[in-house]
């Protein structure tokens, strides 16, 4: 199988593009990839005041990009509601919304070169410290065909003092998006 089609390279390409943190108003919030079942650094504990007041978790729901399908990525933004007198509280969920907007901005619109951010190349992470561009195009595209738009964005019910916004993104290889006439040769 070509390196551009392996689930590992597709997954890491997307995660690498999203990065390990997201910055809003000069403050960086961590992004934890594949942290299902986890509570990174005990972040949801109200007593853990030294920890980041907000963070992002990512998980892949499906990984059929490169297999005539699509990969669905769920990004959860968690933000502590906090107490009224606390400096880093988020009583109205605005910090959570800002972080979610910053995540959407990674794929929406044009970059500095005037190219769509929704189009990028799959990289080969055989050597993680020196990824090689495979030249195969990947698209962030929702089910309606809109490039760079999220599949879904919703405010989830609060979870024990946490604001939560869930974003779903959909990724396809250009080959997958080309319809049934296109096929893989390797």
């Amino acid at each position, binding site marked *: 199988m070509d390196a551009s089609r392996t689930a590992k390279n597709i997954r890491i390409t997307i995660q690498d593009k999203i990065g390990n943190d997201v910055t809003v108003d000069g403050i960086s919030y961590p992004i934890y990839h594949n942290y299902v079942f986890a509570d990174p650094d005990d972040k949801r504990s109200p007593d853990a005041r030294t920890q980041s007041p907000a963070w992002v978790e990512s998980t892949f729901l499906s990984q059929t990009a490169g297999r005539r399908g699509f990969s669905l990525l769920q990004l959860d933004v968690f933000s502590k509601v906090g107490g009224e007198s606390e400096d880093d509280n988020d009583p109205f969920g605005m910090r959570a919304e800002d972080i979610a907007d910053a995540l959407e901005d990674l794929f929406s619109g044009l970059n500095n070169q005037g190219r769509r951010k929704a189009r990028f190349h799959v990289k080969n992470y055989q050597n993680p410290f020196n990824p090689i561009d495979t030249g195969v195009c990947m698209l962030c595209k929702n089910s309606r065909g809109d490039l760079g738009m999220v599949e879904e964005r919703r405010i989830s*019910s609060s979870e024990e003092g946490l604001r939560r916004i869930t974003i779903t993104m959909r990724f396809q290889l250009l080959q997958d998006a080309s319809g049934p006439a296109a096929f893989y040769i390797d």
Partner: protein
Amino acid sequence: MQYLNTSRGKLRAGGRGLGIADLPSLSKISLGDEQVILGGKKSMQIEVRLKSVFHTIRAIGEIDSAVKFFAHGLVHDTARHATRTFMFNSSEIKGRFKDSWSMSFKPGRAPESTGNPFARRMSFFYGIKAGDKYYKPMGDKGGTIIDWLEYGTKPHNIFLKSAAGFYFYWPPNPRTGSRGSDTTLPIKGTEVFHGVPPTRDYIRHPGIRPYGFIRKTFGEMIPVFEGSVVGPIQRLKLYIGVSAKGTGTGAPSGRVY
């Protein structure tokens, strides 16, 4: 004013909105002489050979029924496909959830609650849903089980409220060799017993991972819908013949082939 494309050019539509071309000299038209293209939509081309206005009305009625019947069959098959896909995509969830998916059909327009912008224009609709209990708001936070399964939850504590204790039961499974839950033993690796009495008034739930079966099914069904419903309707051709003899009494003689 509506117009129809005909072999005589663009003609004013008449017939009280029935979509019949208002032909200039209907009585002079002999069988097979005139060909009218009704509608003019890209998705469907209907050709009607006119004998009389009566026959045309009849033919349009048949066309309407035939198209709806045709579309209904396609949508029905696709809805069944979607139901099976929901079952498949939720098959890794333990319990009876995956078997609770059901499909329903109702004639008439869809309720506004479906959120479908075309609800008012529908002549029938299919609904697919899981068992009712999965949509019931749970706990203080207002979430539902189907939300939790679809989007996942963080690790959380479950507190006792009115029950005397926690009770976890699962039956023996001959396939895996599991003997089922034993209320006299704690759950492996924990201090929580399967049944009463509890050692604490709460348990730590490890959280639910997001399964995303609704979003997966939605994404998978779009190409299926395009291929199984939109495509065949776009390629639909109806040939309507009017028998040369007719009945002489004005009885309908149009047939849809």
